[in-house]
């Protein structure tokens, strides 16, 4: 029996859970979907994925009770990982939905990319380290896969930066909260490596089933 709690994946119809689950399976990590906060594992990391429009995702989280629950989980010390729109929802707000606000768990506002570059920023870009983080390796110019039209400005909590017309926060951290603008689950071997490191830091079992034999 594993002493670690499964990873909770927030299931709110705004994320590509199939790919994420595939990546977690390849890492040998236990996970479960939760449509409402009462279905979240009672401990262990929580992942907030996200694809689509800021406002419709926010509304969906509100309807399912997550909007109020996520800050409580974080206040209780639960590690939280936001991916793509998931990261943006953790910020203070986005130009995509100027009349609403974000969860405010990560400082800063999300702004539209461009002008002068193709938007959405879709494809592989290099990331470089901005500040050290205990859970993540040096970026070393690794390639990650991005699909987004908005991004967080780099700030004190930025771990990796990427560039598309201007520098933006690719990975952001604050306390027990981590946010990835790229999709590590879609970013080949380097993405898998980051996901494994981040989740190990968040308390998920660091070993794969194969490795547990030695």
């Amino acid at each position: 029996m594993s002493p670690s709690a499964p990873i909770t994946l927030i299931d709110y119809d705004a994320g590509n859970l199939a790919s994420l689950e595939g990546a977690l399976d390849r890492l040998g990590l236990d996970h479960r979907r939760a449509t409402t906060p009462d279905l979240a594992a009672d401990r262990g990391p929580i992942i907030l994925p996200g694809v689509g429009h800021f406002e419709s995702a926010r509304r969906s989280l509100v309807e399912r009770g997550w909007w109020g629950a996520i800050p409580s989980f974080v206040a209780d010390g639960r590690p939280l990982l936001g991916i793509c729109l998931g990261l943006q929802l953790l910020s203070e707000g986005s130009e995509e939905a100027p009349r609403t606000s974000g969860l405010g768990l990560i400082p800063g506002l999300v702004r539209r990319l461009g002008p002068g570059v193709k938007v959405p920023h879709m494809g592989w870009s290099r990331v470089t380290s901005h500040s050290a983080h205990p859970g993540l390796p040096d970026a070393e110019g690794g390639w990650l896969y991005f699909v987004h039209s908005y991004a967080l400005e780099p700030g004190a909590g930025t771990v990796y930066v990427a560039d598309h017309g201007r520098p933006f926060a690719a990975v952001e951290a604050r306390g027990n909260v981590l946010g990835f603008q790229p999709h590590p689950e879609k970013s080949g071997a380097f993405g898998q490596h980051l996901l494994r490191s981040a989740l190990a830091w968040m308390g998920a079992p660091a070993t794969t089933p194969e490795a547990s034999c030695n």
Partner: protein
Amino acid sequence: MPAKRVVPCLDVKQGRVVKGVQFQGLRDIGHPVELARRYDADGADELVFLDIAASLEQRGTRESWVREVAHELSIPFTVGGGVTKVEDARSLLRAGADKVAVNSAASLRPALVTELADAFGRQCVVAAVDVKRDAELGWRVYLKGGTEPTERSAKDWLWELNELGAGEILLTSMDRDGTGDGFDLDLLDWASELPIPLIASGGAGNERHFLDALHHGADAVLAATLFHENLLPIPRLKTYLADHGLSIRI
């Protein structure tokens, strides 16, 4: 600027990857998951699956291989074929596809593109467009795999697709498709002025052709036979492109 992408394209029929063989019809070359794994390991940046015989009764089969591919693949993938309404796209995206491609259905009912963009964001919407050179229109848009001419000029249609909400254009030159003579560079010259990413398709025969297409403004290059037959291994192509100064993920 993101890296230039190398994109193998796989035609799927009834849950199997197939390849057209001249005068012989289609040959089965494997299960989507098998080929997906191989291309992922080879360093492909993304995959496009086109379901060439999509029909209502095969939707279940399709969702099941799409789900398997999503589970195995560590790179993004697009699925196209038979997407005529938002619900078709929703089932593919729920099964794990990153993007859906629309072609004829968008031409017959352009509002589909806007509906998809509104429902899922424009980054999920790939507009596939098949064109041929034409004395009257410059390049003419064709439907149904290049068999059915429309009255649309490719130039007008591409800009309209951008306005409608397409997030990316997959542009196939029917004149060049299958020839190995190289991409239609004149076509890419003007199409790359669009503010959304452009995937060039049709005509790749060697490394140089890919380099030319990328120099003529394509953001990504797509091919099928060259990769399936391993005539041009992806690692070799990517090294070549990187050695020629392009931004390539290696």
